[in-house]
C-alpha cells in the first residue's frame, strides 16, 4: 500500500494521471486481447479468417515458410535453416569477451564457408541453388554480417584518415563521410542498383545482391567511422604521448596501443550502430531484393490472403524485435561490465 502511495498516488496530478492511464488500459487492453487471442483464427483457413472478427494468425501459419526462406526450393529448406542457425551461432559466440582471441577470425572464415556451401550447394551431392532464390531471414542476416564485416576495416581507415595531418587524405575522408551521412540510404541503394552497371564494360553484369551489398558496406563504413572517431578522441592524450615517446612507427602505434583502446571505448556505440544497420537492411525491399520484410510484403500479394497486413507486420515487428532487443540487452550489459 505504501508502495502504491509513493509510486502511483504521490500527489494530486499524479493521482489523476494514474487513474487516466488505468482507464485507458481498461478501454484498450480487453478489446486487444479479444482481437489478438480470443477471437483469433489460428488455423491456416482463409475462409475462417475472413469470417472471423479477430486476428488471422492462420496467415502466419500458412506463409511462415515463405516468409523465413523466400523462394528457396521448398524441399531444401533445411539448408537455409541450418545456415541461419550457424550464422546466429557465430554472432552469439563472438559476443563473449572470452572468445576475443586471434582464432576468432578463423572460426568466422570456417563458419562462413560452411554457410556458403549450404546455401549454394553444388557440392557433396547438394543441389545448386542460385543466389537469386535466396530470401527471408538468411538474406537479412547475410546482408548485415557481410555489410558489417567489410565496412568495419574500411571505417577504421576512414576514422584514422580523418585525423590525418595530410590535407588530401583528411579532405577525402571528411568528404566521403559527410556525403554518405548526409544522404538517405535509399539513394545509395539506387545509386548502386542503377549506376554501377553503367560503369562496367558491356556484357559484364554485377549480381543484384552484390550491388546492394556494396551500397550497404559503403553506407555502414561512414557511420562506423564516426563512432570510431569518437573512440579515438576519448582516449586520454597521455596515451598518444606515451606511444610517441616509445618511438613506435605509425601502424605499430595505432594497432597495438591506440585502436584497442578506442574500440573498447566505442563498443556500446558500435553495437547501437549494428542494431541500426540490421534494421536498415529492410530497405533492400525497395530495390527488389527478398529480405525478411520483403517476403512478408510479398506473401500478402496472394489474392486469398490480401487484407491481413496488420497481422503480417505485427509478426514482422516481433521477429525484428527479438533480434534487436537481444543485441540491445547485450550492449547495455557490456556497459555495466566495464
Amino acid at each position, binding site marked *: 500500500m*505504501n508502495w502504491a*502511495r*509513493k509510486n502511483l498516488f*504521490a*500527489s494530486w496530478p499524479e493521482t489523476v494521471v494514474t487513474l487516466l492511464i488505468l482507464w485507458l488500459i481498461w478501454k484498450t487492453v480487453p478489446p486487444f486481447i479479444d482481437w489478438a487471442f480470443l477471437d483469433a483464427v489460428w488455423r491456416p483457413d482463409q475462409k475462417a479468417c475472413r469470417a472471423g472478427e479477430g486476428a488471422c494468425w492462420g496467415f502466419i501459419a500458412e506463409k511462415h515458410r515463405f516468409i523465413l526462406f523466400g523462394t528457396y526450393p521448398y524441399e531444401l529448406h533445411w539448408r537455409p535453416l541450418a545456415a541461419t542457425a550457424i550464422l546466429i551461432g557465430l554472432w552469439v559466440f563472438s559476443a563473449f569477451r572470452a572468445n576475443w582471441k586471434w582464432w576468432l577470425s578463423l572460426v568466422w572464415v570456417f563458419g562462413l564457408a560452411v554457410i556458403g556451401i549450404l546455401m549454394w550447394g553444388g557440392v557433396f551431392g547438394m543441389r545448386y541453388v542460385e543466389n537469386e532464390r535466396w530470401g527471408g531471414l538468411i538474406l537479412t542476416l547475410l546482408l548485415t554480417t557481410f555489410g558489417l564485416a567489410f565496412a568495419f576495416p574500411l571505417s577504421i581507415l576512414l576514422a584514422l584518415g580523418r585525423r590525418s595531418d595530410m590535407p588530401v587524405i583528411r579532405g577525402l575522408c571528411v568528404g566521403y563521410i559527410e556525403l554518405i551521412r548526409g544522404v538517405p540510404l535509399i539513394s545509395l541503394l539506387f545509386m548502386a542498383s542503377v549506376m554501377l552497371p553503367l560503369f562496367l564494360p558491356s556484357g559484364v553484369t554485377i549480381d543484384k545482391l552484390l550491388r546492394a551489398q556494396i551500397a550497404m558496406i559503403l553506407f555502414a563504413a561512414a557511420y562506423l567511422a564516426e563512432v570510431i572517431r569518437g573512440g579515438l578522441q576519448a582516449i586520454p592524450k597521455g596515451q598518444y604521448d606515451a606511444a610517441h615517446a616509445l618511438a613506435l612507427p605509425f601502424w605499430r602505434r595505432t594497432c597495438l596501443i591506440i585502436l584497442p583502446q578506442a574500440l573498447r571505448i566505442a563498443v556500446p556505440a558500435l553495437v547501437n550502430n549494428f542494431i541500426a544497420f540490421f534494421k536498415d537492411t529492410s530497405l533492400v525491399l525497395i530495390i527488389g531484393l527478398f529480405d525478411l520484410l520483403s517476403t512478408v510484403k510479398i506473401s500478402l500479394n496472394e489474392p486469398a490472403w490480401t487484407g491481413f497486413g496488420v497481422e503480417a507486420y505485427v509478426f514482422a515487428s516481433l521477429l525484428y524485435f527479438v533480434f534487436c532487443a537481444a543485441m540491445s540487452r547485450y550492449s547495455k550489459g557490456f556497459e555495466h561490465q566495464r
Partner: protein
Amino acid sequence: MIEMIKVSKWFGLFQALKEVDLSVARGEKVVVCGPSGSGKSTLIRLVNRLEEHQSGRVIVDGVELTDDPKKIDLVRREVGMVFQSFNLFPHLTVLENLTLAPVWVQQVPKKEAAETAMHFLARVRIPEQADKYPSQLSGGQQQRVAIARALCMKPKLMLFDEPTSALDPEMIKEVLDVMVELAREGMTMMVVTHEMGFAKTVADRVVFMDGGRVVEAAPPAEFFSAPRTDRAKLFLSQVLGH
C-alpha cells in the same frame, strides 16, 4: 528547533546511522564532525529530507518529517542549506539565483525579491557581482552567493554540509567569516565541517560522530581540551596535528 529521536538510516544493507539522538535548540549552533563515512553528511541531509530515515523520528520546528509532501515542503521553506559543491545554477546570474526561489515558492514580487537579494549580497560582501554568472566567480565568492541564496528565503535554520571542503585554502577564511557573522546574529545553525577553528569560535556544542553513532557531544571548550572517548582523542590528534 530540531529533534532527532533514535534515527536510523540504511543504504541498502549498509546502516549509515544507528539510532542517533540529537537536538538543536533555537539559536543554538551545533558543529558535527567526525571521520569520513561517519554519517555526518547523511544526518544533516535528513533535516530537509534530502535523505529519508527508515526508523526513528525527525521533527523540525514542530513539524514531523514523513512521506507527506506537504510537510516536507513546509520544512524546506524554513530551512536553508549550503552545500559542499555550492550547487549554484550556472545558467542564471547571481541575482537570478537569489531571486528564483522567493519569487516562485514564496510568491514574493520580483522587485521586492531583488531588493532582498541585494541586501544579502551586501551582507556576504559581494554586491558588485550581482549580474555575473557563477562560472565567473571564484570558489569562495560562489559559496558566499550560495549562503546569500539560502538566506533570501529568510529561513529559521541554516544547514551547512562541509561548506569549505571544496575551497582552496586562501578562500576558506572569507566564507568562515560570513558564517561567524551569521552565527553572531543569532541564526540557528547545524554545521558539518572539519574547520575546528570555527567550532571553537562559534559552536555551542560539538557533536562527534563515528560509524553512524554519536560518540561524544560537548561544548567546544570541553571537547577540544578534554575529549572523553578514545575515538574522539584519535580524531582530534589527526585533525589538529597538521
